[in-house]
């Protein structure tokens, strides 16, 4: 093959060589020029390659530097605590909020993030915060309390009244990038000057003078290291370190060194010193928390001292700068000795460079490391609530954006309520187990607490270990709701005031329904008795099953299901008669949505955990506005609520009469299922709606009724949070009448046991009960006389 192709190749070659021969002679003569050209070409080639390479690096650098530089975690915040005169809040609660915000208790300072307390007066130096609706400035304020209320909020410097102040919101969770890098971005002007001086003293003295590389600095560092016989100073400039952190792996090769140098020069060529310094301060790796990498000085400041950069002392600044050299080797919690030595060296260098005086240096060196004992956890203390937040965010945001775009998410969580609820729930479950001889940790619970009128979720408990981010019973456990369904049955009946009032007499007599398949259906009462004729209200108050089933069948299952849907139930429900007694599986969260419509006088508000989302620059992306829907007639809701209030006075939840403060009126309903597997209570005050479920994960009986289990937890929590007594506005078309419960007819003061009942105007009975004619009834007369005596 080579042979055959030779002739063809040769001919052109020969002819070419002929021409070239002549030229060659010429070239020979001009040989210096020829070499010059070759060298030139090589140089051109080399330079072009270098330029192309540099251009490539340049693109890389600018892309990284100007584009989105860091994948930032989303930060989730609790509701900010509002402070205003006449607010229901104790000094103790405010102090707890300040502790959650990591304020330091300190007497003589006006530094932000500090407070002091003298009895009923708390003086706060707030940090200020950028909210989605504007900035709340840092402020010195004095908050006075009396009788469980805020009596005044004043400017601590001039005593002038401050109308309304918002503290910063407590951070409750971060949604981390997949690579688990965590950081808090800061602008250069938010960084204390001393930190920059310290950094320069140790890492790069001539930072503002060199152009990316610093040969004098390198020489000096080598000399210093020789003198000290160990590496005390690095030779890389801050720019080089930034490049290394930004783009390069940890390999120690010449190629990397060259790349680093070129990129450092390019970086300096494109960007100002301040821009580079700011990037450095945000990028630098300063610690590790399990899988989470701590980057940047601002996060490191939180991680080691639980305070902001601007709240750091000199020695704390020095420690952070000391960590640059080796965050793991100098880890101050594990190696305090090494860390202190390195910190003191930084302080020495700062003094040597005249950034601090000798006295300040000595004082700083004499002080302890002052890192907090345990690193603040990167995992949320409220995983159940955060799961709800993520569920609701998932409707509008991609998972990847949540992990990387640095979104700031403002939620409705009230950490004070949450913490109190957790504490009360845990204690009560232990007590119940002890009293009932149940094994320890046998019982489980779920709690949902929301604002009655706003539908905001204030607290959420997914299990008895609230810190454990596992099965979230509040959202995911679906259990039969039992009698919790009954208010909807009664509401549907009362929607038709011509047919049903609270005084309508219902039959509580045996009932058997033939079913298409299976056995006939014969509901029974809990006490296995039948109660004859009972007032509609009392059938709900005492939770009679038979009369409720009869009522529901008469009203029609379809109407009840339609109301369930209007009240916010989204899952399909089959129209089986057993639905009337709660044979429908719902989560505590779904039950909350249903009861929300009742608690809010018939206006449905979707339960929501998110108020607003802003981007990493603080620009509002989305607000979740308050949206109402009229779900059920407010008059029927008023009547049902009156009956549910009676449940808590003399019905199945009457233990509340001594479990709650006497002046605190509430309304609610108990629920118990098959063989005491599920214990429920759902109820509300004027301000808070709370649904509690107690049971066992394996669905075995717990031996608890709604009253003996969930209601106890409910009462403990309701008692521990500040809330207002039920005070429903009476609709115009409702009026109260005194009724004789035996006959359901109009009563008067002569009727023993007569009860006040609300009616939709025009629907009240017209007939007088026999007791009103019983003028000769001496018992009643005597009673009346006594009553007059005490009035």
């Amino acid at each position, binding site marked *: 093959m080579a042979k055959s192709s030779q002739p063809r190749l040769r001919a052109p070659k020969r002819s070419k060589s002929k021409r070239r021969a002549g030229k060659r002679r010429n070239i020979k003569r001009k040989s210096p020029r020829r070499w010059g050209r070759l060298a030139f070409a090589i140089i051109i080639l080399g330079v072009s390659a270098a330029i192309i390479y540099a251009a490539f690096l340049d693109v890389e650098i600018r892309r990284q530097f100007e584009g989105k530089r860091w994948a930032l975690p989303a930060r989730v915040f609790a509701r900010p605590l*509002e402070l205003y005169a006449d*607010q229901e809040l104790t000094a103790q609660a405010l102090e707890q909020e300040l502790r959650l915000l990591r304020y330091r208790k300190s007497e003589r300072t006006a530094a932000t993030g500090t407070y002091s307390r003298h009895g009923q007066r708390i003086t706060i130096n707030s940090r200020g915060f950028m909210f989605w*609706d504007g900035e709340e400035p840092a402020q010195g304020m004095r908050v006075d309390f009396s009788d469980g209320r805020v009596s005044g909020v004043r400017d601590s410097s001039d005593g002038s009244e401050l*109308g*309304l102040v918002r503290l910063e919101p407590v951070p409750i969770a971060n949604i981390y990038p997949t690579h688990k890098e965590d950081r808090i971005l800061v602008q250069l002007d938010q960084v204390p000057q001393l930190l920059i001086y310290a950094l320069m003293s140790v890492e790069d003295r001539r930072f503002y003078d060199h152009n990316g590389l610093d040969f004098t600095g390198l020489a000096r560092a080598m000399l210093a290291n020789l003198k000290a016989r160990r590496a005390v100073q690095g030779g890389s400039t801050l720019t080089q370190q930034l490049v290394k952190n930004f783009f390069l792996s940890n390999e120690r090769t010449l190629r990397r060194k060259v790349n680093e140098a070129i990129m450092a020069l390019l970086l300096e060529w494109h960007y100002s010193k301040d821009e580079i310094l700011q990037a450095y301060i945000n990028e630098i790796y300063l610690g590790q928390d399990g899988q989470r990498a701590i980057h940047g000085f601002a996060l490191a400041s939180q991680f080691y001292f639980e305070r902001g950069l601007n709240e750091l002392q000199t020695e704390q600044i020095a420690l952070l700068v000391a960590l640059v050299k080796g965050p793991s080797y100098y880890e101050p919690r594990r190696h305090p000795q090494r860390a202190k030595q390195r910190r003191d060296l930084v302080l020495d260098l700062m003094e040597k460079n005249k950034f601090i005086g000798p006295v300040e240096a000595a004082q700083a060196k004499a002080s302890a490391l002052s890192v907090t004992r345990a690193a603040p956890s990167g995992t949320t203390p409220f995983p159940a609530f955060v799961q709800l937040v993520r569920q609701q965010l998932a409707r509008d945001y991609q998972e990847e954006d949540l992990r990387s775009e640095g979104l700031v998410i403002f939620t409705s969580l009230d950490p004070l309520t949450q913490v109190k609820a957790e504490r009360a729930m845990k204690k009560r479950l232990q007590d119940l187990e002890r009293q009932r001889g149940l094994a320890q940790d046998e019982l489980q619970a779920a709690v949902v607490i929301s604002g*009655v009128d*706003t539908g905001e979720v204030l607290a959420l408990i997914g299990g008895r270990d609230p810190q454990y981010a596992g099965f979230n019973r509040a959202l995911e456990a679906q259990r*039969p709701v*039992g*009698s919790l369904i009954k208010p909807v049955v009664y509401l549907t009946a009362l929607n038709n005031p011509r047919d049903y009032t609270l005084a309508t007499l219902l039959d509580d007599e045996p009932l058997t329904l033939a*079913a298409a*398949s*299976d*056995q006939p259906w*014969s*509901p*029974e*009462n*809990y*006490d*296995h008795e039948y*109660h004859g004729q009972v007032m509609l209200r*009392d059938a709900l108050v*005492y*939770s*009679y099953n038979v009369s409720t089933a009869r009522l529901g069948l008469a009203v029609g299952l379809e109407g009840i299901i339609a109301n369930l849907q209007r009240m916010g139930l989204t899952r399909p429900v*089959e129209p089986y008669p057993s639905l009337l007694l709660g044979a429908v599986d719902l989560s505590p969260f779904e039950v909350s949505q249903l009861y929300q419509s009742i608690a809010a006088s018939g*206006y449905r508000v979707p339960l929501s955990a998110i108020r607003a989302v802003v981007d990493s620059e603080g620009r509002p992306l989305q*607000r979740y*506005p*308050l949206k*109402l*829907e*009229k779900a059920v007639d407010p008059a029927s809701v008023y009547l049902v609520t009156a009956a549910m209030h009676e449940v808590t006075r003399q*019905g*199945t939840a009457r233990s509340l009469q001594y479990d709650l403060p006497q002046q605190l*009126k509430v309304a609610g309903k108990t629920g118990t*299922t*098959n*063989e*005491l*597997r599920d214990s429920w209570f759902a109820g509300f005050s*004027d301000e808070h709606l709370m649904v509690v479920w107690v049971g066992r994960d394996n669905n075995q009986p717990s031996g608890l*009724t*709604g*009253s*003996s289990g969930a209601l106890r937890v409910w009462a403990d929590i309701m008692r521990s949070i500040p809330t207002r007594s039920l*005070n429903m*506005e*009476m609709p115009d078309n409702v009026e109260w009448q*005194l009724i004789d*419960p035996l006959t359901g007819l109009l*009563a008067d003061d002569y009727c*023993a*046991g*007569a009860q006040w009942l*609300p009616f939709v105007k025009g629907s009240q009975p017209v007939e007088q009960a026999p007791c009103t004619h019983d003028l000769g009834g001496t*018992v009643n007369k005597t*009673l009346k006389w006594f*009553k007059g005596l005490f009035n």
Partner: protein
Amino acid sequence: MFSLLLLLQGCASSIYNLPEPEPSMPPPLPEATPSLPQAEPPLSTQKQVAAPSKAVVALLAKADNARHSGQLELAAANLERAVRIAPKDPLPWQRLAQLRLEQGDARQAETLANKSNSLAAGSHGIIRRNWQIIAEARRLEGDTQGALRAERKLRELDL
């Protein structure tokens, strides 16, 4: 009867997943234990609308400023903040209704005005303004009959 109950529990199907009957107490029997008639309704029947708190007034003013400068959602954010602070005060609800009306959301406007009304017992001025909002909202929705009804209500109020 008890055996039937056991049977039912034994063969609990999706239809007959029967909830256990509720623990209940028999109602007090008036004959056996004579008691006094209840002195008054257990829930209050009348309520005075308290004057809005200073905090609420401050937020309403903030919302007004935002509204005048065309930042309607910022105005809404401030009004919702007021609602959270004083959910039983009819005024923030009314301002929110007014704002939604200006934004053309007639349905929300009417619902919010109704909600405000449900809290406004005895506050003639607030109720009057709410009915005006309702009338305007209905007109915006094209519900002329409904608007006329609301206006009739307004005239009744003025009588």
